[in-house]
């Protein structure tokens, strides 16, 4: 049995998660989307090889994020003194004393949650791409990946970096490390990856391949 990523069960019902409107599932051509007529939420989107692309992009996110955490991110120098900082240093900036909890939260929002989400998506989609049965607990894995979505804040961090650079510009000279460019690329990859993940299609595929 192969698992295709196009919806095909004409008779099945689907309810808009945002407004509870009830529809019959329509089958879509690649590149088409079906929206709720009442609140315009995207219910189903069909894209060619969506699972394979989402999986490949998730792998890219993991690799780039590991690189972006290890390599130097930014450096400042003033009056002969230089300090360089990695993304992890930024996350752990609050590590001293009562601010520790904030450090953990920042590390989670900009590094851990984006990585965890991509790893979970990979775990869920890889077997589906190859037409195999889903791995154990794939349903739970996808559930956690979806719950993490609003808390993955890499793109917001990048805007934060831009603001910080302006603030620091008249205090010191700023140098960019390789991690800076990796992180910038990461934001683009995350946005594209999100556009290939359609919740309904993935849930449907998990459901179908379990039977």
């Amino acid at each position, binding site marked *: 049995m192969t698992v295709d990523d196009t919806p095909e069960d004409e008779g099945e019902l689907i309810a808009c998660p945002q407004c509870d409107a009830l529809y*019959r599932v329509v089958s879509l051509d690649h590149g088409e989307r079906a929206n709720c007529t009442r609140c315009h939420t995207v219910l189903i989107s069909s894209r060619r090889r969506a699972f394979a692309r989402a999986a490949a992009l998730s792998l890219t996110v993991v690799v780039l994020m590991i690189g972006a955490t290890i390599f130097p991110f930014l450096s400042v120098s003033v009056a002969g003194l230089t300090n360089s900082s990695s993304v992890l240093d930024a996350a752990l900036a609050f590590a001293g004393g009562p601010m520790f909890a904030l450090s953990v939260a920042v590390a989670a929002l900009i590094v851990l949650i984006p990585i965890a989400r991509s790893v979970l998506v990979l775990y869920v989609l890889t077997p589906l791409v190859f037409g195999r049965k889903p791995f154990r607990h794939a349903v739970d894995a996808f559930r956690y990946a979806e719950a993490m979505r609003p808390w993955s804040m890499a793109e917001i961090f990048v805007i934060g970096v831009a603001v910080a650079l302006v603030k620091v510009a008249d205090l010191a000279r700023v140098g960019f490390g390789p991690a800076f460019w990796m992180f910038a690329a990461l934001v683009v990859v995350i946005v594209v990856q999100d556009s290939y993940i359609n919740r309904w299609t993935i849930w449907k595929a998990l459901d179908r391949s379990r039977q």
Partner: protein
Amino acid sequence: MDDMESARPQQTVTARGSGLVACTRCSRVWPADRDICGRCHAPLQSRDPTALSRVWAWMAVGIICYIPANLYPMLLTQTLLSTSKSTIIGGAIELIHHGAVGIAIIIIVASVLIPMGKFVAIAYLALSLKHQVKLSAAARHRLYEYVEFIGRWSMIDVFVVAILSSLVQLSAVAAINPGPAAITFALSVIFTMLSAQSFDPRSIWDAEEEDTE
């Protein structure tokens, strides 16, 4: 882009109206008496009667955290010549004095206008379920989507503080450290996000259906 064909055209049919319960996680519908979704294992509940109290409770803690976030300093800056503490607004004013008006606007929008706007918008949405309001259900739904989408962006200032404090550590020449407002501000953003997530947008439409009947 195709719009879905309604199960019964002309008038919108809801899952609840058809004696079904919809899973908000995976969109599957089940008979009304089922309580766990067989597809994604989410608990099923046609409408959660406690949702609104959770919206108000998270919002209350969000507002409580937002007050000290504005009164206490966000950044402590030490240079050879001076030591200064700046609050969110103070930091933005400093940026304007340095000529970085665009960046000051980003900070004011992300740290003042978005959080304040969110408190007002969520309160308005919650009140609109019990009281007659001017905006249509469609307009209120759009407002809810904006709130959900934009709320996370308030975190910008926390990240700015994190980057500056890790980067600018040049012994006596210049050092930037986080102030207590960084933690209360981050908490305020998190609680307000939880408040928006607790709101069930389906209730916006329920009220309208009851009106037209």
